[in-house]
């Protein structure tokens, strides 16, 4: 045991002072009594002003000495060595992701992790500092480099679980940003180990070691991992997949509802590790369908799945081309596109189309809206310089989201217009000779391709439909996407033309209002369930829906790994740690209070 305030030992002078006061003799007034033998021989010295007398044994003296000793001991702030080994700067990474809602430990993994973190906070020494980072889909610092235990306790106790995955990489990046070179830091990860794979950027290591404190024991869980609604010529049907992630046979009941009305209840038995696919009917007028497992297992987030049953609103798209089967097929891949194909001679401007694709054709005036222009003819306003031969094709920025999953490795272009002098927009795909594809956001999202697709092998590559998908979704995102999103995944919402109000009603009934007139990104999608987008157009409320579901095998499997592969430590010096400290002065002070109370009682009872 050590003491934090050794200077408080000077207060021990009170002990001999108390004894000294008892040595002093009281000047007692003389009282004549008729029969002294009737008076008990009991004496208690309460005040002293005449030295000296023999020290008499006294309960009051004993209790006063005991109380003073206890108070001096409390003032010394003694601490006991605790279990944890702490660095001067402890970084607590508290997993608050969906899997931490599992109740295999009582009351939940997150609550257990909080309890463990609070225990570590109690062991902080006076010079120790702690940072607490909540690890979720977006990690955040909830307490930064502080030794204030109350603030740390409040911060930890205020953490609420997310329905999203644990992005440990971003949490480690946050932590690394807080540690300076040479700092004595150590990170403690309180998690069930169900985290997203670490990014490769951590291969160089971290400036602090990371200790993994596993929370959770069981992986016995049955969950819904997929629910989609497909429309065929005859009817609509829902395709549901449920999976037993545990090691035991599980019998569950499945409730199937449309717009909250119960349609069916099916008992199901799932062998360990096995899944089951179900095809479920969807009423023609249903807006949404919901599957709910009456599993009563340790993880409730994946026991409910919701899908939007109503087909999304279609966009009319105009393709003006002398003939380009590649382009036509690529555009038809968008199920919400209603494609009209016309020859350049038949083109006339129309506001009925949400997007226009101009292949080897350029009208005198571009339509007001998203436009994809491919190989504008010479002499048009957008045409580049004379054609040049093209060598290797490359991405201008490999990290550009418009080129996500687009592999340009084996793409060749014979020749292209020289777009180096073009002021159309920023280059997306280029070559040594000239930019090949330009994109711009203003006045509308538009794309200019400088070469004829027939003079390239790009349409023959898998990259072409992906590129077209990326570009078309960028230019004309679905008004309200009807597919399922993961928790905390941003949803792009394009307000309808003329919308005076756009708001989103979340599954819990709360409403969020979005700006009108611009494409909005709605990120408050942590709760799972059905989200309703309400747009007021000319006084009429138009509703559309999207759903948020967990649908994550990696999270639903729940089994905490015994070991977690964590980045290596980059620290050049040996990390110095010390044992945590458990302050016991509050208990001693409490004991002193009890002794003072006993002394008060003894005084009044005349002991």
């Amino acid at each position, binding site marked *: 045991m050590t003491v934090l305030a050794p200077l408080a030992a000077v207060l021990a002078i009170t002990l001999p002072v108390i004894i000294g006061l008892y040595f002093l003799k009281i000047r007692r007034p003389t009282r004549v009594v008729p*029969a002294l*033998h009737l008076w008990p021989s009991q004496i208690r010295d309460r005040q002293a002003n005449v030295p000296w007398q023999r020290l008499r044994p006294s309960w009051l003296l004993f209790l006063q000495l005991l109380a003073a000793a206890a108070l001096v001991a409390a003032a010394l702030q003694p601490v006991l060595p605790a279990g944890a080994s702490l660095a001067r700067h402890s970084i607590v990474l508290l997993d608050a992701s969906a899997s931490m809602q599992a109740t295999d430990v009582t009351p939940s993994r997150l609550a257990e992790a909080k309890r463990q973190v609070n225990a570590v906070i109690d062991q902080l020494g006076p010079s120790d500092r702690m940072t607490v980072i909540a690890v979720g889909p977006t990690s955040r610092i909830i307490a930064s480099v502080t030794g204030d235990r109350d603030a740390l306790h409040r911060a930890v106790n205020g953490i609420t679980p997310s329905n999203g995955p644990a992005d440990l990489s971003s949490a480690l990046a946050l932590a690394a940003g807080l540690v300076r070179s040479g700092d004595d830091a150590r990170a403690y990860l309180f998690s069930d180990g169900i985290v997203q794979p670490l990014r490769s950027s951590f291969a160089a290591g971290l400036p602090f070691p990371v200790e993994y404190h596993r929370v959770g024991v069981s992986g016995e869980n049955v969950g819904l991992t997929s629910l989609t609604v497909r429309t065929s010529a005859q009817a609509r049907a829902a395709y549901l997949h449920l999976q037993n992630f545990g090691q035991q046979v599980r019998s569950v009941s499945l409730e199937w509802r449309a717009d909250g009305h119960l349609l069916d209840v099916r008992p199901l038995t799932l062998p360990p590790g096995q899944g089951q696919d179900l095809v479920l009917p969807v009423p023609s007028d249903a807006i949404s369908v919901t599957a709910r497992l009456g599993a009563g297992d340790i993880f409730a987030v994946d026991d409910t799945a919701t899908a939007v049953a109503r087909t999304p609103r279609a966009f009319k798209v105009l393709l003006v081309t002398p003939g380009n089967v590649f382009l036509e097929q690529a555009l038809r891949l968008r199920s919400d596109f209603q494609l009209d194909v016309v020859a350049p001679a038949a083109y006339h401007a129309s506001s009925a189309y949400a997007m226009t694709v101009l292949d080897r054709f350029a009208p005198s005036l571009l339509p007001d809206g998203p436009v994809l222009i491919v190989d504008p003819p010479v002499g048009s306003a957008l045409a580049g310089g004379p054609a040049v031969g093209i060598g290797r094709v490359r991405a201008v920025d490999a990290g550009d989201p418009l080129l996500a999953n687009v592999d340009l490795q084996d793409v060749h272009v014979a020749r292209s217009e020289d777009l180096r002098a073009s002021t159309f927009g920023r280059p997306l795909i280029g070559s040594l000779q000239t930019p090949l594809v330009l994109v711009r956001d203003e006045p509308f999202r538009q794309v200019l391709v400088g070469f004829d697709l027939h003079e390239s092998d790009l349409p023959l590559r898998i990259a072409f439909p992906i590129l077209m998908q990326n570009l078309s979704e960028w230019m004309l995102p679905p008004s309200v996407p009807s597919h399922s999103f993961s928790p905390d995944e941003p949803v792009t919402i394009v307000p309808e033309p003329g919308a005076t109000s756009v708001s989103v009603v979340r599954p819990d009934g709360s409403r969020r209002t979005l700006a009108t007139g611009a494409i909005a990104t709605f990120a408050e999608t942590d709760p799972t369930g059905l989200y309703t987008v309400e747009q007021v157009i000319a006084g009429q409320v138009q509703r559309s829906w999207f759903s948020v579901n967990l649908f994550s095998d990696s999270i639903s499997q729940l089994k905490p790994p015994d070991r977690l592969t964590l980045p290596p430590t980059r620290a050049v010096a040996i990390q110095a740690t010390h044992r945590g400290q458990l302050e016991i002065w509050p208990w001693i002070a409490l004991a002193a209070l009890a002794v003072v109370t006993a002394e008060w009682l003894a005084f009044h009872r005349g002991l």
Partner: protein
Amino acid sequence: MAPLLEPALLRRLEALALQVRRAVSGQMGGERRSRRRGQSVEFADYRNYTPGDDFRLIDWNAYARLDRFMLRLFVAEEELPLSLFVDLSGSMDWGKPNKADTARQLAGAIAYVALAALDRVRLTVFAEGETSGGAPSRGRRAAATLFSRLQSFPAGGVTNYEKLVWPIGRQRPGMTVLITDGLGESPLDPALRALQRAHQEGAVLQLLAPQELTLDWSGDARLKDAETGVEREFTATPLTQGSYLKLLAQRTDDIERAAHRRGLRFARLSTSEPIDEMVQITLRRIGLLQ
């Protein structure tokens, strides 16, 4: 010197009399029924005439009927010998009102009741031992002298009840009233036993000051014994005060039980009571006066 008792009180006392349970045998005639036969109006018995008898007592009516001399006997009326033992030790010289002063007044009042009834009163004050109160007094005129003597005895000394045994034992059968606070260290029971042996009918009157019965102080003090002068340090707390009061109550109860066991009356009196009320209420209640 102030008179021991107010004249008004004396007048009220003349209406009282000592109440005896059995006949007395005094030395002189009085107003008490005696065990002897004597001159009075109260017929007692007949007996045969024997030569030498006072023929004035022959019942001639009986002679006419029975033809023999019969003597009518009458109850003799004699004085009651009353002994007053008054404790004037150091412990009695304490309290407000002072216990010794109150004891003098109480003894004077009882003596006056007796003197007014032609009883013979012997006054004895005591502390470590007896101090004779002088010759026995008789008659109302002796009251002033007796009062004067009572007031002349100073209070002081250590109580020793055992030294009362001899003077009590040499008394003729009669009435004895013992006035004391009963707080002496020596036990009171030998004196009470001596009273019983001496065929004394009487009473023990325990006189205490209100300051003894209810403590009006607390805290630290140096206690000094009023009789011995011995000192001891003491701290008065609710606990220690409770212990004292418990011991005092126990002492009082012991005296009361011992008195009743010896056939004596007992009364505990507080000096806060007026003498008038003590005599007319308390002493009548215990049957000492009527």
